[in-house]
């Protein structure tokens, strides 16, 4: 895993404070575990090189 629960916990502590989300110490291990999974999924997406002209599709029509 590129991002482990302990580094996810450090990020969570700061990011939660920034958005006013109360994260108690008792809750932190489970949340950090989930967040590590999400941040690793995010890394898989962010690392993928896309041409600059690829835009999101806000009005999405499959």
């Amino acid at each position, binding site marked *: 895993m590129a991002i482990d629960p302990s580094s996810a916990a450090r990020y969570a502590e700061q990011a939660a404070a920034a*958005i006013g989300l109360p994260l108690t110490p008792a809750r932190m291990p489970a*949340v950090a575990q989930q967040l590590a999974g*999400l941040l690793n999924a*995010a890394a898989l*997406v962010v690392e993928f090189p*896309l041409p600059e002209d*690829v835009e999101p599709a806000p009005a*999405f*029509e*499959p």
Partner: protein
Amino acid sequence: MSPDALDAVGIAAAVRRRSASARDTVEAALARIAERDKALNCFTAVLADAARREAAAVDARVAAGEDPGPLAGVPFAVKNLFDVQGLTTLAGSRINAERPPAARDAACVAALRRAGAVLVGALNMDEYAFGFTTENTHYGPTRNPRDPERVAGGSSGGSAAAVAGGLVPLTLGSDTNGSIRVPAALCGVLGLKPTYGRVSRRGTALFAGAFDHVGPLARSARDLAVALDAMQGPDPEDPVASRRPAAPTRLELDRGIAGLRVAVADEHFARGGEPEVFAAVGDVARALDARERITIAEAHRARAAAMVITAAEGGQLHLADLRARPDAFDPMTRDRFLAATLMPATAYVAAQRFRAWYRARVRALFERVDVILAPTTPYPAPPIGQDRIQVDGGEVLMRPTLGLFTQPLSFIGLPVISVPVWRGKLPLGVQLIGAPFQESVLLRVAAHLERQGVVASPIA
């Protein structure tokens, strides 16, 4: 065939020709619910009095020689995230139970009622649709009618179990990452996730709007077709509804499969599951004489991007309650929702851009094929309460892994039907995946598989 075993189209035909009354049909459904739902826990509300009144109105229309609609007298029920006039929309939560009753029906509930169907109740789900098992702590787990010790799947678990248990022939569910297809597979019924935007979501509680779809679950392909036809089409009140005019599918159903090009998805969709789920795909492929294999490239990354967008949108949607009263959330969703609120914006935008890129790649595949086959879930229904599961020689987390094969498809809004295939006591699901707005092709294939005896959904 006993009237209780009829599918929705069969019931409507009997009501229309007066060999059965809507009142008796609805009364029988209410009796089955009273008898079986204590054990299965599909329903969170049963609307017995209203259903009796609506059934009487259907019978009156038949008696007056009026057209009672293609779903005349068909008892149906909906996941409790659909607005039902007079009922509070729970979306599986305790928090929303404080809200006032809905002022009017969701668009698709109203559409089925206009088609003559009779709403008998609301159905259990994972809290705010964030789950694949319907192990809801507030309202209890829904049990799988094929084996009550096992999960029904989710998040539309009540919708799948109610159909599999024969409580009602037709239900509605929603599917953001697999929430119609996963429970349909685990309970052994058919579930249709229509093309994104083809069916209005007006009046349904959102989860991740980028992928939220609504659709029917039933025991026959023709029931899915008739329900889709009743609900599809433009709706100015749903901001993502397609402007394409409705294109009925019911009359296409018996055209057979001549000329259709069918391929089996490989790579991501051919590993990470138990051998029997791939064998079920093989059964369907043989029945369709499908020999080609096709690669949906970057499907694993599409799944990751779906997780990113779901977290960002779902986390933001519930942020106010997560700040103010996290303890009111279901312990099964709370930690995941809390983590979801912290998704970086850069990842969200990257995932949305990747989605456009991936859509273009998958669209190109449909120049070569009409239908792609893949398993719905990596394994059949696991026991309730189980956290980990052995798959293909390794151990994985049971709940998130249920979406392995469904997430990369809802991610770009493709229409998919999960059809039930049997190789043992528990059903397995196979996804029939089509090009956008080609539901009629998938329904033709599903109907063909029913005629071949490869797909069947008997009442449990």
